[in-house]
């Protein structure tokens, strides 16, 4: 542990500094002005001097100047209510290592002391610390820089397709240093939802700054970054996004801990199909099952457990009905419905088509389906759907108008 000298004319400041740093195991000594501080430095060798600016007898800049003139290179941390640029710039020329503005919080003091004493090597570091001490999680004190460690791993990687015409919007951002995490999630997420990945804090911040994001999945164990601090930062940049912590399955009691730290929930790794489905149901609106471009509707692929298939078809019917009202309002006489991705469950597909047809025919809209030969075969099995026009592609269906 280090030997530290605090030089300040305020007894209460010296007491707080001494109390906080002694709690970390450091040896503390005190002086009430610059002259007494210099005397202490002649008696003993210190690892760090914490120095005020304005003091009687000899002020901080005066003491610092005499220290350096005498060849004393002990690191100096200024702890002061002085924030004038010209004064601090002069102190920097004399060789100060860091600066804290009074009033200060204990966490900032501890973090800066650790930084100056270079105790940050290998310690987990946050990207940003909050302005005040309130709500700061344990272990989230700024004890170093995330710069070099986090930089240079490349930009956010796209992990999928879809997401509408505006790629500036991402449905799910996965922040995890393991690239496979976003790839695995991509395989389990419906195609109409877009997924992007960030492998480090830097790219995560850039992604959150540049894009709209609906849900963020953040690894609880990111290297070089305190995940809670990173979560707070992405929340500021994406205040409307839901943020879930990613934990490995061996972790226990994580939900409570994650919520206590400010996450909205957790998702366990490796991903479980049911858990991913629950996540989608909870945070993504079912209207995303159908995308619309003028009078062309495209139904997304079903991904999930078999027992959710019924609700999938019901939601598709409901969404197509809703969009058909918009199509009617825009004076289109036809609607192209691409059902290529719908699972080939014969009876359910036929019932869905009948229901849709019955609803939209009342609006005077003619339906043109787009689907695979398998869908065509399914529709031909039932008298009610056998005559429905089906095309191999959206272009073909539009040309038939």
């Amino acid at each position, binding site marked *: 542990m280090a030997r530290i000298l605090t030089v300040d004319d305020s007894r209460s400041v010296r007491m707080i500094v001494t109390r906080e740093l002694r709690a970390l195991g450091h040896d503390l000594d005190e002086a009430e002005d610059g002259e007494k501080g210099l005397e202490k430095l002649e008696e003993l060798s210190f690892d760090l001097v914490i120095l005020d600016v304005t003091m009687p007898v000899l002020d901080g800049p005066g003491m610092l100047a005499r220290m350096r003139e005498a060849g004393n290179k002990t690191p100096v941390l200024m702890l002061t209510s002085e924030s004038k640029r*010209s004064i601090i710039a002069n102190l920097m020329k004399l060789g100060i290592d860091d600066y804290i503005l009074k009033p200060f919080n204990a966490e900032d003091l501890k973090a800066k002391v650790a930084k100056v004493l270079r105790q940050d090597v290998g310690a987990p570091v946050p990207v940003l610390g909050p302005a005040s001490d309130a709500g700061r999680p344990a272990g989230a004190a700024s004890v170093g820089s995330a710069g070099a460690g986090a930089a240079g791993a490349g930009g956010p990687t796209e992990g999928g397709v879809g997401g509408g015409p505006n790629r500036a919007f991402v449905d799910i951002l996965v922040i995890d240093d393991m690239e496979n995490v976003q790839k695995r999630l991509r395989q389990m997420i419906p195609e109409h939802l877009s997924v992007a990945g960030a492998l480090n804090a830097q790219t995560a911040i850039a992604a959150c700054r540049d894009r709209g994001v609906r849900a963020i999945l953040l690894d609880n164990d990111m290297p070089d970054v305190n995940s809670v601090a990173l979560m707070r930062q992405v929340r500021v940049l994406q205040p409307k996004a839901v943020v879930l912590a990613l934990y490995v399955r061996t972790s226990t009691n994580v939900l409570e801990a994650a919520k206590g730290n400010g996450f909205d929930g957790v998702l366990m790794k490796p991903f479980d199909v049911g858990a991913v489905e629950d996540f989608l149901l909870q945070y993504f609106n079912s209207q995303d099952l159908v995308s619309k471009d003028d009078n062309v509707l495209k139904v997304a692929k079903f991904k999930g457990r078999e027992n959710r298939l019924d609700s999938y078809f019901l939601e598709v019917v409901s969404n197509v009905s809703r969009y058909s009202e918009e199509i009617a309002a825009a004076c289109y006489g036809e609607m192209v419905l691409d059902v290529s991705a719908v699972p080939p469950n014969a009876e359910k597909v036929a019932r869905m088509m009948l229901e849709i047809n019955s609803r939209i025919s009342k609006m005077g809209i003619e339906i043109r389906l787009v689907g695979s030969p398998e869908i065509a075969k399914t529709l031909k099995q039932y008298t009610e759907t056998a005559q429905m026009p089906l095309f191999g592609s959206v272009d073909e269906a539009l040309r038939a108008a």
Partner: protein
Amino acid sequence: MALPTAPPTSSADRLAEQLQRIISKRIDDDSLVLPMLPLVATKSLELLKNPNFSMKDVAAVIEKDPMITVQLLRFTNSAALGTRDPIKKVQDAVARLGANQLRTFLIEAATRRLFESKDTRILATNKRIWEHSLVVASVAADIAALANSAEAEAAYLGGLLHDVGKPVVASMLLEAERSIRLSRPDAVWIGPADFLTVVQKIHRPLGIKLAQKWEVPEPVLRAIRDCDDYDSAERSSAANAVRLANAIVKEQGIYEGEVNKDDVEAMVMIGQSVLGVDISACRQLVGSVRTAVKAYL
């Protein structure tokens, strides 16, 4: 024994002093002619003062200016707003932005025009000052947000306008040069480096006056006015966020003109403690902001 002589004054210093005197006098007797806000912006901002403003009325005013209309739709559909479905109508754009963001957009559109010039000599300089202002604005808004400040919008505008006096001074210098050359075609005028020195020396009071004329909110005005030191009483203020952003952006070399390295380092060190943000993350933000700004320019 001879009296000590004053250090020689450069032509830029002399010109700056003369202009400063003229501008101060004009400010004092209220005869300084400053650029007006475009009529569309003035009318829209007036309508936005009413908390129950009609989106239809505001849209109708904006649609009268095709340039602002195009910029508004482009901005509303930009990455920053994360719009899922493209917005095609001005009224939808107004609804999407809301009063505060629309106000910021209108002032930004008006400010951008100040940096346009037909003179090729100052066009490039103005473009770099505008780039610096846009980056400072974005980084200041992020810093304000990260410092839990409620003034992120004001920080953006403050960043955008903190150097707004510079293109105004540049235009005045051009005007002065033209007048002098008309009467004395062989007159020697200052070079590009001195030109920037003059701009830097006297832009501040002009920027403040312009912002006052445009009736920008008080937190924004403070960000433009008090650029040299932090306000330790209001640590998370928009003005402080702009000061720190300005220092970080200068430190990263995105600045037109000479930079005092010691001052910049001091501003970064103080700002980090005043606002309670980790500087390395703020520096990281500058890179991505600059890329976005370059695409926007």
